[in-house]
């Protein structure tokens, strides 16, 4: 009797890396920032993350059952979406907010397009966009005032102290005052105070790094986010191009146009470290499915995200622009890929 053998096309060996392997590394890399957030904002954060993750997985599971597709809800990608939705809401939101965000993100952001690999935009950001559009108050009220002596403790007459508890929000209002001094000529005290706040904002690097500021759950602790990102870069799960050009572009625009004393007087470090930029640039813009695959494409994508973020932050009506800029660039990804095809070996 002849032996029988397995038959398959070459290559007959495969790299050990797999989709769940990649996804769970990303989950792992997001955990430090989550722990930091629990320390800063309290154990409520843990519940918000748990709710978002569980709802994400359950939603994907049910969708796959309904659509009669193979159930892959535990491949890790739904967990990432859940975590990112939770990281994109303030710590004091009602418990159903992360649940709705995760549900919408998974259904409208992912499953309607065919599931993992086919979604044109980052599902977590779809969830976040839905939440900000539907419950703007819930999504922008940062009631938790972290540790004493931090930025959120600054009280400024004429500036809504509660809703302006994120540094970017304060910056936006301060800048508004300082750029239009003539309008406030009868309020010298306000101008003086604004100048004080501006200085304090720019001096707050350490608080920004550690996350001792108001903001969404996952976006505040820059150090811990960078720690996670470094692991992913070391594991070659995310590349350096998108985050580098994203952050670099934002820094450049912030320096050029972000100042209150004319061109080139802005503080790039403040802009880089505040808001959701680090979370967005390293963990959301780098989403494999929704970012370009070509070398130049990744650079253009990063720059595009940076430009849009800067435009929204500096000239838009909304203090934070990271999530919308990524969503818009996600939509441009197929086009970017098409126009940035690499030069073939031996091609002209």
């Amino acid at each position, binding site marked *: 009797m*002849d*032996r029988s*053998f*397995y*038959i*398959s*096309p*070459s*290559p*007959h*060996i*495969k*790299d050990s*890396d*797999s*989709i769940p*392997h*990649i996804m769970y590394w990303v989950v792992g890399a997001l955990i430090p920032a989550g722990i930091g957030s629990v320390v800063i904002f309290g154990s409520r954060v843990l519940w918000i993350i748990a709710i978002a993750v569980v709802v994400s997985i359950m939603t994907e599971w049910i969708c796959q059952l309904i659509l009669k597709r193979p159930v*892959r809800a535990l491949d890790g990608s739904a967990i990432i979406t859940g975590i990112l939705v939770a990281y994109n809401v303030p710590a004091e939101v009602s418990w159903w907010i992360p649940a709705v965000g995760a549900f919408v993100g998974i259904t409208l952001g992912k499953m309607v397009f*065919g*599931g*993992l*690999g*086919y979604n044109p935009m980052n599902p977590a950001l779809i969830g976040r966009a839905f939440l900000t559009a539907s419950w703007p108050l819930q999504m922008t009220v940062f009631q938790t005032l972290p540790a004493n002596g931090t930025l959120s403790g600054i009280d400024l007459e004429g500036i809504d102290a509660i809703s302006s508890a994120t540094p970017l929000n304060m910056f936006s209002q301060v800048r508004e005052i300082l750029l239009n001094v003539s309008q406030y000529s009868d309020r010298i005290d306000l101008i003086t105070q604004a100048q004080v706040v501006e200085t304090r904002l720019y001096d707050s690097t350490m608080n920004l790094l550690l996350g001792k500021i108001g903001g969404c759950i996952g976006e505040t602790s820059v150090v811990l986010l960078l720690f996670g990102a470094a692991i992913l870069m070391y594991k070659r799960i995310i*590349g350096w191009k998108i985050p580098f050009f994203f952050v670099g572009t934002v820094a450049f625009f912030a320096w050029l146009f972000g100042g209150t004393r004319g061109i080139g007087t802005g503080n790039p470090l403040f802009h880089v470290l505040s808001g959701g930029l680090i979370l967005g640039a390293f963990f959301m813009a780098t989403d*494999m*499915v*929704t*970012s*370009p*695959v*070509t*070398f130049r494409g*990744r650079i253009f994508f990063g720059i595009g995200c940076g430009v849009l973020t800067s435009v929204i932050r500096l000239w838009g009506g909304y203090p934070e622009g990271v999530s919308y800029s990524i969503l818009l660039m996600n939509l441009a990804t197929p086009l970017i*890929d098409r126009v940035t*095809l*690499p*030069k*073939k*070996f*031996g*091609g*002209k």
Partner: protein
Amino acid sequence: MFKTNSFRGGTHPPEDKSRTEHLPIENVPIPEKILIPLQQHIGAPAEPVVEKGAGVKTGQVIAKSNGFISIPAHATCSGTVTAVDLFTHPLGNRMLAIEIENDGKDEWEQKQSRALSIRSLKKDEMLKRIQEAGIAGMGGAAFPTHVKLSPPEDKPVDIILLNGAECEPCLTADHRLMLEQPDLIIQGMRIMMKILGVKTGIIGIERNKPDAIDTITERVRKVKSIRVLPLKVKYPQGAEKQLIKAATGREVPCGGLPMDVGCLVHNVGTALAVAEAVSVKKPLIERIVTVTGNGIAKPKNCRVRIGTSFRHIIEFCGGYTANASKLISGGPMMGIAQVTDAVPVIKGTSGILVLDRKQAFLRKENPCIGCARCVDVCPMNLVPNRIAAFVEYQKIDKARRLGLIDCIECGSCSYICPAKRNLVHYIKLGKAVWNKTQKKAQ
């Protein structure tokens, strides 16, 4: 700028050569039956000149070449022709082959003449001897060597490269050959350089074979025209175009041949065969085959007669292990899975690899997640995930515009894909479909 001696892209599969890289080449006894396929090369198949029942001697032509891009086939043992029929071929399909029953005497048709000085031979005579010896590239593609050595006049060749990269994991046949018969390899190279009047010869060897680099370097120390070039260890360093790029910085244009940039690449085994053919008129009747893998009891480097069945060689290597599950002709990256071990070794067979059950296990394909690893590793700078997707959706024309035809089928993309997509398989499929529509159009 630093010199990298490499190319962009590429990947690093486990080299897995330690089983056999230190084992000297062993001669496998000639089996009772030899099976010589008539198509062992690219081009027209050879035409049988013997019939069932005919007596043949070792080295006798049993099928003549059929045109310029064709080579003859020789009997690789003495005995009786028992069949001229269709047999399973290691490249798949059933193809015409001549079966010879070995009489055990190994009588040669002509005595091996004493080595001639190659100086006395004219170019045409040398080319004729190479064709008569039935030499086709022994690195795998098996293009007739005499054709390669006859470039048209408008394509002057100024560099001959010898490929000792052996970038396929597991295989050590070229490595052992360079260690054990360096003089013949160098002689073969000099013959090829003489045929083309080329003044520069480069022998490219990956750095994971330091002993081979030392051995060859030692032998060519006094030869000004030939030098050894250590190469970065990276797959597919031994691919023709990538080797040329690494060694000379020249880039073979899309759809072009190495001669378009003045280069010719030959495998070290081919050089050895050329040396034997030209100096002693020995036809190509044997080659080195690495027999390895978890499914082989005693992995070895073997010198086998062309036409020896895989089964016979595997028995010589102690047989299969209990969990042997997949039989591959060639290496793990580009080799071809075999249905049966009754297939014979042909001129392009560089290895016999047997994988165990765990290695042979096939993972399910998942949707592409756009991680871009295939784009990063593609040595031809293509976008494999999109080409494969277009083929999958039967948009061959779009796939072609993205470089479907430029793919060298090295398999780096499929190897690296975390979604376990058989990218290179889709691309090969797309090429086949494209060729079919082209033929129809003509």
